[in-house]
């Protein structure tokens, strides 16, 4: 220790401020960058931009197929990842607690959560696109993104299941309900809001993913809208990627406008999740 020297108060204050600014700076940088995007892109935002197809002329290009693609993709991803993820969470929390299989599943989830998203793209390419013969389709994309968000859905759902007090389960079982009946009628209704919030947050991650979809071979320019599960597709991040990589300045403006749409979508989804959590916390934990 600094033997015999009294602590230097000025240095201390200085360090506290340094830490404070170090916390603030990345946030400020992000805010400035987003501000720059808004200034660049907001002029391009219009109904036409949302409802037009991509074009060689940056002033006429729109994001219609990308928006539709992203919406369908997220809906399908949720339809796949939510049931499987919630069921897995129920198994781990309510059934297989100390079993060998449960242990194996846990190790796998922890591992999969750390796998880079582009690797999921390779998995989807080999398994869904080629082996199962789904082609470069909407369904292949959704299944791939589903696997990608699955670990997050599982972790969020487990968290929610853990908030249900053990006594509630004991009460259900003591009333003669079977285990599944207890889960279905007691545990799930209490945990559902938390599960929903976590799930919305996890699935919204899928909206911003570009790398796995690029690996699957998602279309970079589409002049039609997907008309079925096996139809080719594109998505907002792919469209933004395509525009960002082009040299003409006009496309950078299109990319900025696309980013505004993407960020607003994320904001709405996250807002909904937080609002849901807030409402539910009030209802249950009064």
């Amino acid at each position, binding site marked *: 220790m600094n033997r015999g020297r009294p602590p230097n108060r000025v240095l201390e204050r200085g360090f506290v401020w340094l830490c404070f600014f170090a916390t603030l700076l*990345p946030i400020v940088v992000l805010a400035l960058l987003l501000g720059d995007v808004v200034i660049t892109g907001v002029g391009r935002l219009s109904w036409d931009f949302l409802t037009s197809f991509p074009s060689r002329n940056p002033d006429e290009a729109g994001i219609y197929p990308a928006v539709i693609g992203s919406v369908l993709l997220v809906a399908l991803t949720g339809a796949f990842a939510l049931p499987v993820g919630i069921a897995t969470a129920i*198994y781990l929390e309510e059934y297989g607690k100390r079993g060998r299989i449960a242990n194996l599943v846990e190790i796998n989830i922890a591992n999969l959560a750390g796998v880079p998203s582009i690797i999921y793209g390779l998995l989807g390419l080999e398994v869904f696109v080629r082996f199962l013969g789904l082609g470069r389709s909407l369904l292949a994309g959704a299944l791939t993104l589903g696997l990608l968000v699955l670990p997050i859905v599982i972790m969020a759902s487990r968290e929610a299941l853990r908030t249900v007090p053990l006594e509630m389960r004991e009460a259900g079982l003591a009333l003669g309900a079977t285990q599944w009946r207890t889960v279905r009628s007691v545990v799930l209704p209490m945990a559902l809001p938390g599960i929903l919030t976590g799930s919305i947050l996890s699935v919204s991650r899928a909206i911003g993913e570009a*790398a796995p979809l690029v690996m699957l071979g998602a279309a970079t320019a589409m002049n039609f809208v997907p008309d079925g599960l096996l139809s080719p597709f594109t998505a907002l991040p792919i469209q933004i990627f395509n525009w*960002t990589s082009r040299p003409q300045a006009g496309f950078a403006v299109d990319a900025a406008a696309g980013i505004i749409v993407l960020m607003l979508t994320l904001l709405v989804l996250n807002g909904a999740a937080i609002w849901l959590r807030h409402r539910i916390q009030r209802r249950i934990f009064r």
Partner: protein
Amino acid sequence: MPRKRLVGSAARERSIERALLGCASVSIVTTFAILVIFAVETFAFFTEVPLAKFLFDTEWTPLFADAHFGIWPLVAGTLLTSALAIAVAVPFGLLSAIYLGEFAPPRVRRILKPTLELLAGVPTIVYGYFALVVLTPMLQKVIPGLAGLNALSPGIVMGVMIVPMITSLSEDAIQAVPQSLREGAYALGAGRLATIFRVVLPTALSGIAASVVLAVSRAIGETMIVAIAAGQEPRLTADPRVPIETMTTFMVQIGLGDAPTGSLGYRTLFVVGASLFVMTFTANLFSHRLARRFRER
């Protein structure tokens, strides 16, 4: 007939449990599928290209007529951008963790923490746009000789993105340091700074290290930022001003073109992917170990 009903419901219970187990095994199957795919494609690759050419060649030109398959230029690109990102993320992440864990009044903390988390929620494609369209032109005014595509700009942007990862895990580690240790230091006459640097941080060290290693893993696997802003020119260099190519960018490059299934180009995709997987998996495992050692202490 209560007994019969019981038998029926017991069977139902069992089939439900099996169905749940079936869902749970999806994650096992996923890991397994990843490993099998990499094993098969990598094996096929090395029947065509000797391992020595992969490990000892210093050029990566798999799509040229004069094909070279030395992985190191790609690894160098990946490590360069990751190192830049870590150089940015560690000081900011650590200082913000100290601030949130030791200094911040509860009200400030309640606002700052979720706001900082937002950084991790922004899609990487957006950060890629920032790096290429906003940051690179700004840096070019200050740094002479900075190419339009370079390692520096995506490295910095990636650093900003992974700050919250380091902050959140390091703060957990700092908060887990027992209050009694701090009180002991104060009782010995140490000031706040001495307490933080001589007692709290050393105690939390393995937890903090775990967060940094996890951030390294994240940076290695990051794709869109480098694919947009770092270039597609594999080269063995530590110069952050010139275009390079990372492992992930190469994968995107192949993904955008269509390499026919079974071709050597298609297989390089999986060989690079497998190398990437090994690197991130090792980092994750290492981080996990460090975190566990911290918890045991």
